[in-house]
């Protein structure tokens, strides 16, 4: 066991290594470790929050979906109702239109009949005059017997 200057040398080296470790090694590594710990804790908390938000969102989506479904059902039933009404209305319209057309046609027929009758009446009057002329074989004053002819024609 020779003690010599090595003892002092080793003490100095030891001191330098301890100083270096304390100043340049320990702090950054421990800091990285604690930072990572914090980061992991943060990540876990964020994941937990995300999980909660997800379930909340799902709940909200379900609510929106339910509302939409109800609205759709309502709209559908309204539309069906409206369609029925429209069909009903058009049936009524068609019926009245038909009746109107029938009435118009009947009126037209009436008018045509009257016109034909009038025409016929005039033609019969002329024919009657001509026939009377022939029958009487004498000139009759048309103007003098006009009222007679008219009377006759009206009786046809």
């Amino acid at each position: 066991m020779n003690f010599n200057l090595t003892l002092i040398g080793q003490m100095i080296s030891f001191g330098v290594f301890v100083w270096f470790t304390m100043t340049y090694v320990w702090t950054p590594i421990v800091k990285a470790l604690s930072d990572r710990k914090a980061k992991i804790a943060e990540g876990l908390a964020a994941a937990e929050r995300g999980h909660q938000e997800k379930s909340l969102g799902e709940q909200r989506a379900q609510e929106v979906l339910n509302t939409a479904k109800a609205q759709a059902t309502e709209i559908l039933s309204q539309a069906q109702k409206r369609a029925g009404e429209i069909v009903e209305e058009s049936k009524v319209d068609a019926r009245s239109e038909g009746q109107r057309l029938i009435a118009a046609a009947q009126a037209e027929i009436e008018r045509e009949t009257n016109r034909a009758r009038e025409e016929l009446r005039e033609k019969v009057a002329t024919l009657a005059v001509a026939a009377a002329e022939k029958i009487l074989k004498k000139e009759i004053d048309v103007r003098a017997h006009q009222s007679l002819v008219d009377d006759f024609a009206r009786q046809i």
Partner: protein
Amino acid sequence: MSTAETLTAQGYIQHHLTNLTLGVHPEHGLSFAHNAQGAAEMGFWAINVDTMFFSILLGWLFVRFFRGVAEKASVGIPGAAQNFAEWIVEFIDENVRGSFTGKNPLVAPLALTIFVWVFMMNLMDLIPVDLLPWLFGQSMAIFGADPHHVFLRVVPTTDPNTTFALALVVFGMVLYYSFKMKGVGGFLGELSLQPFGVWGMPANLILEGISLLSKPVSLALRLFGNMYAGEMIFILIALMFGGGWALGLTAGALQFVWAVFHILIITLQAFIFMVLTVVYLDMAHQTHH
């Protein structure tokens, strides 16, 4: 062993237990010691070049590796090196938290340095005992040195200079923090007033003084003794290699078994040194006595 053939067993062991000492010899002047006696004659003002070289090399590797990790330390996913360094740092941090109750930013880095550095110095013991000394002797022979007088001890912790240096630094810290935390009166009171009270002061002083002084001595001698004995057994096993193939095979098996067992010892000794340092510093920081 090629050099061992010409040596006696005693010479072989002696050769392995002699440091490469540089110093001023009373007769040869500034030179490397030719033998253990020559190293002793150089007195205190000589230096064990091998011990210094290997301990500083290993310490340099240690701080370089950890500094490299610390520089690139990322909060994100750590790489392999960072993982390894963080594993050690957390292990040390846990131990220091467990046994050190005070607040001192020096203690944990000190514990890390002791554990890793001592472990690395002890680890040198697992390199085959003849390999590095033989290579060194052969390469020095190129420069004209006699390989029989070129010594090299590769395990710095088998040199009591190393273990006592560590223990003395720790002891200095124990004294410094004892005075700082307890105050001069508090510390002297602790040394002189217990366990027997004021009237037992001389007995107290003797008991507490021995207990105080035994701390660095036991720290240094425990590490030195374990490593020295371990190295000695490797040397003795290595001696058997020269005794024919049967003895050589036995020696190979023994060396393997002892090396495996030694892995436990070197780790344990580094750990014990670290834990005791932390415990002693914790005692120095306690003020409630």
